[in-house]
């Protein structure tokens, strides 16, 4: 991978150069500031596969740089690893909200860096190979239909330009980071689009992606003003990590989200109106979990939301049958 490291500490850049040189298949370019990095972009003809970015830098900090990279078409999905001594939760939240893929806390070890780089290699390869076809948030009718690409129902589609929504692999890294700090006070919650399978098979891939993007926006907006991160996990299901929600009135929240979705007046590319509703699983308060076990909480939230959707359908059927019998 061609990696760009941006850090105002020359010792860190030397360390990275030393470590990356020892790993086969990688090349490191270094910059001591965001301004230096922008100069490098002007002259470097190759596209970078990965970024290592310090958070605290004079003038433009690493979080702003990360956000700016995500706004470009070229680096929308390129892995960005925040390499920083800031271990407070607020910094972790800001970094992931800005689009960071992962977060490495200084001082770092060679094995940790090596492990993280190998984890993002596949993402980097995907980012290089795929042309971004991006349904962005906004009224469905305003969108022009772009090149159709085949998607899978279970695929965790990337969602662009929706505040508070991050990619699913970044969400896994986020909860893993939190588990090393303090998960207490955070709640994980799943939401699922009811009859997502029907929607998937009846809509074009593009229209399905648009529905998912709009629902993501509704979820993220309705969870405000609480600190929240949302990701799409595939199969019409979203997982969210919400901070400081001691008691969540899930039913009320879901009603609010469904009203929001209805107000969006979702439709297909040919103007056919869509009736989209979501339901939620059980909220799960996160407590300290070892390493990768924190990711398990996301899986549980995913399953819980889908079980809730199934249960709701069964209840509706039962009610319908009862009415028929009466």
């Amino acid at each position, binding site marked *: 991978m061609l990696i760009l490291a941006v850090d*105002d*500490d*020359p*010792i*860190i850049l*030397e*360390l990275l150069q*030393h*470590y990356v040189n*020892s790993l086969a298949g990688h090349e490191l370019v270094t910059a001591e500031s965001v301004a230096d990095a922008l100069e490098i972009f002007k002259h470097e003809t190759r596209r970078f596969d990965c970024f290592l970015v*310090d958070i*605290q830098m*004079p003038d433009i900090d690493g979080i702003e740089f990360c956000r700016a990279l995500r706004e470009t078409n070229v680096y929308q999905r390129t892995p960005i690893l925040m390499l*920083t*001594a800031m271990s407070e939760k607020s910094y972790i939240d800001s970094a992931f909200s800005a689009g960071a893929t992962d977060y490495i806390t*200084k*001082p*770092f*070890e*060679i094995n940790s860096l090596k492990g993280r780089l190998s984890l993002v290699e596949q993402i980097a390869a995907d980012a290089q190979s795929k042309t971004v076809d991006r349904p962005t948030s906004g009224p469905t009718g305003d969108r022009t239909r772009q090149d159709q690409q085949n998607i899978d129902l279970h695929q965790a589609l990337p969602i662009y330009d929706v505040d508070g929504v991050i990619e699913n692999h970044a969400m896994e890294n986020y909860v893993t980071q939190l588990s090393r700090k303090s998960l207490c006070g955070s709640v994980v919650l799943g939401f699922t689009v009811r009859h997502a399978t029907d929607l998937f098979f009846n809509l074009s891939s593009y229209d399905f992606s648009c529905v998912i993007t709009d629902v993501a926006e509704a979820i993220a907006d309705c969870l405000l003003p609480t600190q929240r991160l949302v990701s799409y996990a595939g199969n019409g299901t979203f997982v969210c990590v919400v901070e400081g929600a001691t008691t969540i009135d899930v039913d009320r929240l879901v009603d609010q989200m469904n009203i929001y979705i209805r107000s969006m007046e979702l439709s297909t590319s040919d103007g056919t109106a869509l009736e989209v509703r979501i339901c939620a699983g059980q909220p799960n308060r996160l407590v300290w979990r070892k390493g990768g076990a924190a990711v398990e909480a996301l899986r549980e939230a995913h399953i819980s939301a889908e079980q809730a959707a199934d249960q709701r359908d069964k209840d509706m059927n039962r009610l319908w049958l009862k009415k028929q019998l009466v």
Partner: protein
Amino acid sequence: MIELDLNTGLAPIRDRFLLLLSERQDSIQQNLELAIQSDDLADQYLAHIEVTLHKIAGSAGTLGFSELGDRAKATEANIISQRINGATQYRDIYFDIIAFLECSIEATCPAA
């Protein structure tokens, strides 16, 4: 074996870190003196010290100076916390910074 090679390769970076540390110690000391002398601008000088401590904390541990890195991080956190709490008296922070400077000299030149 690879690990050994990697650590051997770190020696020149460690040397440069120590050279830079000496400059950083001087910078902290100067800013500390200025902060003590001018109460009005103390915030500004402490901010410079905070940035320097942050850099030391970021690389010291990787280069084998874990204690120094931890101490720099703790002192930086103390400055941040005092700033957030709107402290007007910095006496305790000054002592903390002096303790850090002493610790950094001991950590890097144990014979001194």
